[in-house]
């Protein structure tokens, strides 16, 4: 055991992983360095991954926070780093349980560590230009009676563009024998292969590596403090906790990590209100979506199928900016180019009562054609949603608990249901006067 720990220590000093494979280190403003081995380096060198350098993480948020110009490329590396830290944290604290109760051996632990790393690295390769802003323009997924999502594109891209570099690389052939589908299945939440579902929480949950990274990274680049929390404490206290109702193992924290987890949930709430659902960012997202609709053939992105996927990959921020620069995107393209965005004229409280909602409907009806945009927090990609996660029992013999039960703050958090009304800049004064008149009458 001691020898193994020493080997690990020297491996890190020499820039190698614990198996002695030399690692490439990439500078990261959040974690310092992110290490990649030769296989991962080949994966990120693929054109479909390099495309992420040309997909901005926060769309046009720089119109509000000018430094928020970072990309999905650095976020993807960050998610891999965070996912690995979470995985290693779980293994360190739950190794006995993994072996005695869930049938893991060391080889299985090593294999799933790699599975989690690759899924985290590749989870966002399917993003559309400017990330979420254009996602409503993805075509209908007939089989599931819904629109395609960026995860559908990510998994289709992994199964096509990344299949060879995943399946044929010597590291895979000699050690893991992964199929591209195994990685895609974990990303799309269909991991039925032995034991893989256990790690789904690291890819998508309240404690997933994606949101743990984007809160820190978006906060850093936007220049706000709201998204910061003690992620190292979470990594140091993460473990498999029995579900409070059924006893099934799920990702949670020990009692010692409770306050760090609480801080992360609060960070999500703050970042939603201050950055992701900022009134001006919402307007720019709308203009971008409308401009993209005008640019795309048929107003929709190509589908994630064999026929259209290559064309989808040709769409990135550069192409959209080029089109905008050439006068494309119709009326909304022009608005983006000249910063002539829609203006907020009315918003409900974060938690509207029935009378608040009735008032909103009345105002929206009165504005008629002047109303240019109605935006609801509940439809945002970043909405707070569920905020609970399990906390391990404080003393032996006690039951695990939910964070909402042991944290008054989290227990009292509610999903924001704010709705906003926007008009054209030139209609703002008239709309405000109309709203004031109606509200004055009501009072």
């Amino acid at each position, binding site marked *: 055991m001691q020898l193994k720990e020493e080997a690990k220590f020297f491996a890190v000093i020499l820039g190698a992983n614990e198996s002695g494979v030399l690692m490439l280190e990439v500078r990261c403003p959040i974690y310092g360095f992110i290490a990649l081995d030769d296989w991962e380096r080949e994966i990120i060198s693929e054109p479909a991954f390099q495309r992420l350098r040309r997909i901005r993480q926060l769309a046009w948020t720089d119109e509000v926070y000018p430094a928020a110009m970072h990309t999905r490329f650095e976020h993807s590396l960050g998610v891999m780093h965070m996912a690995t830290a979470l995985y290693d944290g779980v293994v360190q604290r739950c190794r006995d349980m993994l072996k005695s*109760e869930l049938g893991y051996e060391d080889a299985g632990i090593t294999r799933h560590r790699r599975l989690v790393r690759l899924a985290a690295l590749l989870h966002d390769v399917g993003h559309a230009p400017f990330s979420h802003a254009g996602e409503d323009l993805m075509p209908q997924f007939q*089989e599931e009676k819904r629109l395609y999502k960026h995860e559908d594109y990510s998994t289709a891209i992994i199964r096509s563009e990344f299949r060879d570099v995943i399946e044929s690389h010597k590291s895979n052939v000699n050690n893991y024998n992964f199929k591209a589908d195994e990685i895609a299945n974990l990303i799309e939440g269909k991991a039925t292969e032995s*034991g893989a579902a256990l790690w789904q929480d690291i890819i998508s949950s309240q404690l997933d590596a994606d949101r743990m990274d984007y809160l820190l990274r978006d906060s850093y680049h936007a220049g706000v403090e709201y998204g910061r929390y003690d992620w190292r404490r979470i990594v140091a206290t993460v473990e498999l906790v029995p579900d409070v109702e*059924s006893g099934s193992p799920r990702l949670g924290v020990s009692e010692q990590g409770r306050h760090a987890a609480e801080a992360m949930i609060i960070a999500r709430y703050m970042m939603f209100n201050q950055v992701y659902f900022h009134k001006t960012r919402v307007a720019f997202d709308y203009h971008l979506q409308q401009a993209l609709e005008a640019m795309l053939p048929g107003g929709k992105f190509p589908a994630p199928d064999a026929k259209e996927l290559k064309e989808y990959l040709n769409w990135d921020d550069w192409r959209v900016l080029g089109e905008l620069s050439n006068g494309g995107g119709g009326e909304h393209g022009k608005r983006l180019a000249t910063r002539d965005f829609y203006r907020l004229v009315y918003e409900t409280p974060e938690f509207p009562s029935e009378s608040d909602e009735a008032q909103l409907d009345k105002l929206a009806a009165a504005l008629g054609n002047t109303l240019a945009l109605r935006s609801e927090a509940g439809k945002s990609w970043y*909405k707070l949603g569920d905020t609970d996660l399990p906390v391990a029992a404080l003393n032996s013999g006690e039951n695990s608990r939910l964070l909402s039960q042991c944290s008054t703050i989290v227990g009292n958090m509610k999903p924001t249901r704010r709705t906003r009304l926007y008009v054209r800049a030139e209609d703002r004064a008239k709309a405000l006067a109309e709203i004031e008149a109606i509200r004055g009458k009501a009072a």
Partner: protein
Amino acid sequence: MSTTPKLRVAIIADFAEKLSGKLGRTAIMKLMFFLQELKGLPLGYSFRIYTYGPYDAQVLADLKVAESMGAVQSEYFDWDGGSGYLIKAGKKPALSEEDKKLISSFQDEIGWVTREFGDLSATDLEVESTVFFVAKSAEREKQKVSLEIIARAVHAIKPHHSEGRILKHIERLQQRGLIVLPQAA
């Protein structure tokens, strides 16, 4: 077409009324899963598979909205070997005319799911919803699977449950005509 958040809140409130005193969060999650995946209601959820069965955080987000609107009330309880929220019906949410018509048209499906699965424990709901998730995945991939293959696949997702226990659940579902499995080729 997908349902509105308010309609989903109304469905949760309906379950809370029908299963008063025995509805927890796991039950809400799995009953919504059955409504969408077995009865085809367009709830707009995207369920992913976890060791604790099919799950979409949006269901619990809808439950939070239901709580904040007073449509349901949640109270935390400790019991021998576990704990969790017990969800009770509150005041009926105000619905648009369209949503009123829709929830009325969904009553057969809500009633069916309540009768077939409403009395199961959280643990049993996890296993049976996972069985359906696996069976549906096999159907989507056009794979012919036997009862034993389904049990093995569910065990791979839920290694903390024995294959024997999982098989008993599949047999229960077969006996009630809830699942029909073609024989493996």
